[in-house]
């Protein structure tokens, strides 16, 4: 039971990290109809800048702040120079161009920082663990990541539901033409959304840096997961992204051990040793396929 609780906590924590990345992705896609494969690169850049700035400025917190801001600015610069020209192009053109951006920036990262993984120190304040239950400790840093994710989710909920920009974002996600009809400077709205998304992904990168290995291409696998999240949640929906991120996080942690146990129980030892891990690996894809088969537009589609 304690194991179950810890696994659930881990699932939520992974979900929060995914949410930080997926939130920007789903808004950019929902509002601008822009498929930005290079969103995962923002996560990688955030992590690398975090390591670098933490080194220069002497500490995690300075690194977190500077790296989030610079990653956001970098995303904006890409938007102004390149992405802006792609908004009215087909989704496939966007896929091709942003794929080009991914492989370029992965290689640039390798040139600048080398291909060896980098180390990011955990902040003193959050390192260490606390007693969850008897004999089981849980790292403080993970609780902090969860809290950060929840705070961002709450903040986004307020922005999206209570402010004028949020109203426009919601309107844009369900009917882009209407927003333009209102005489809103759509370009500015796009840049606000894009910069916010890029910054959140960068922020997630810095947060993850002390936990994972900081290496070139680290954003690629996470990007796929983030897309799984936004598709399950319903493209353009922040609420959907939040729910789906938690779902994917939980399925990936809890579901994996569950499947392994189930296959041990149901199948012979040799069969389960083969089938169990394979099914466990494909579990989130099975879940996604199942959800889309039943609800082709995801759980909370923003569009009618």
């Amino acid at each position: 039971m304690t194991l179950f609780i810890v696994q659930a906590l881990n699932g939520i924590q992974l979900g929060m990290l995914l949410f930080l990345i997926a939130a920007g992705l789903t808004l950019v896609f929902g509002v601008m109809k822009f498929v930005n494969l290079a969103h995962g690169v923002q996560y990688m850049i955030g992590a690398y800048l975090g390591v670098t700035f933490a080194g220069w400025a002497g500490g995690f917190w300075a690194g977190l702040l500077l790296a989030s801001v610079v990653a956001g600015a970098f995303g904006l610069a890409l938007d102004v120079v390149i992405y802006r020209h792609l908004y009215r192009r087909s989704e496939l053109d966007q896929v091709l161009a942003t794929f080009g951006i991914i492989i370029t920036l992965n290689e640039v990262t390798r040139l600048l920082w080398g291909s060896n993984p980098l180390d990011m120190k955990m902040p003193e304040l959050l390192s260490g663990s606390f007693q969850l239950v008897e004999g089981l400790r849980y790292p403080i840093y993970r609780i902090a990541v969860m809290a950060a994710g929840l705070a961002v989710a709450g903040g986004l909920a307020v922005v999206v539901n209570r402010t004028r920009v949020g109203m426009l974002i919601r309107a844009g996600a369900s009917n882009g033409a209407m927003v333009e009809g209102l005489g809103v400077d759509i370009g500015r709205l796009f840049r606000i959304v894009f910069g916010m998304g890029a910054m959140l992904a960068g922020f997630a990168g810095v947060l993850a840096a002390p936990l994972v290995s900081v290496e070139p291409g680290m954003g690629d696998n996470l990007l796929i997961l983030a897309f799984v999240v936004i598709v399950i949640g319903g493209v353009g929906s922040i609420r959907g992204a939040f729910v789906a991120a938690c779902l994917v996080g939980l399925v990936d942690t809890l579901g994996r051990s569950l499947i392994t146990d189930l296959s041990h129980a149901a199948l012979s030892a040799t069969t389960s040793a083969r089938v169990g891990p394979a099914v466990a690996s494909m579990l989130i894809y099975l879940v996604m396929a199942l959800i889309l088969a039943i609800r082709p537009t995801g759980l909370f589609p923003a569009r009618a």
Partner: protein
Amino acid sequence: MITRLFGATLLALAAQQGVVSAQTLKIGVIATLSGPQAPLGEQIRDGFQAGIDSLGGKLGGMPVELTVIDDELKPDLAVTKIRGYVEQGKVDFVIGPVFSGIIAPIVKPVTASGAFLISPNAGPSTLAGKGCSPDLFVTSYQNDQPHSVSGQFATDQGYKKVFLIAPNYQAGRDALTGFKSRFKGEVAAEDYVPLTQMDMQSEIAKIADAKPDAVYVFLPGGLGISFVKQYRAAGLEKIPVLSAFTVDESTLPAAGDAAIGFYTGANWAPNMENAASRAFVAAFEAKYKYVPATYAAQAYDTARLIDGAVKMAGGTDHAKLRVALEKAPFESVRGSFRFGANHYPIQDFYLARVAKRPDGKLQTEIQRKVLSSDADPYAVDCKMN
């Protein structure tokens, strides 16, 4: 007609060139040099180059024409690149690759071209047993061995219950089989994680729950770095961690101080007490500015092996070279080294522990010998001739 004349001229030119190149040793290094696994490939490349440099830029007294090929960890791509390379002209040796998934498809094209394939890292069981080849030499180990070292150690220590973790792929499953082959106690759990997983927390939770006497992990690259960092953060220091390819000099700079105290099964470590090893480490660090891991050491040995064999054979005659290679006429950084009947090494294995050097860098350091002159269990299946 003109084309044919033109072609004939070129053929003649090429033939002339062939005469010239017969005096140089043509060697290709194939390793993974892009993607997340690139650091291992770089160790192999740099280690081999360091070997050549240590012999004054020549192997067996012959100048070396070296070509470095990136396999990108894509088997079909590796085959194309290696075929393109060996078909360009007579190649004497191909050195590589890093991963078992790449060696299987390139054995045939390389050996069929008349070159020797010498693997400085990958040592799959298939090629050690029934699939062994007279033109394939492995200078590293058979893949099971580094894992069985820890199994033996765990048995020696009297650990009753050990928790096992490996990535969910063939090498991961083989690793745990290797560990279990010499471990006599109870396996608390065999936990397979996806190769792309970024987060080890849920495995760590299971360990905390299972309360084993020790943990055995095979988590290469980024997986291991995540694990090491998170293991310390979870406050599980009291449970010892045995490992292979998880904490080595390629991951230690990123894993940081959290890795200190982790154990690893190895055939070499930078603090190995012999002259050849000391010379290697000093020269390597001076040139490449990082601490070499076993990958680099094995590649260094490979270069010295070729040097010795070419000298002994007095040239590049294939049959004579093979006989010479089998005798392993070189001084290994690992001390004792010889080839078994299947061309895999017979060598000692040690338990090493991560420690901080006086200069602040981390390295693995040998604690004690666990296996002496160990031969892999598949050699008996090898019917080479």
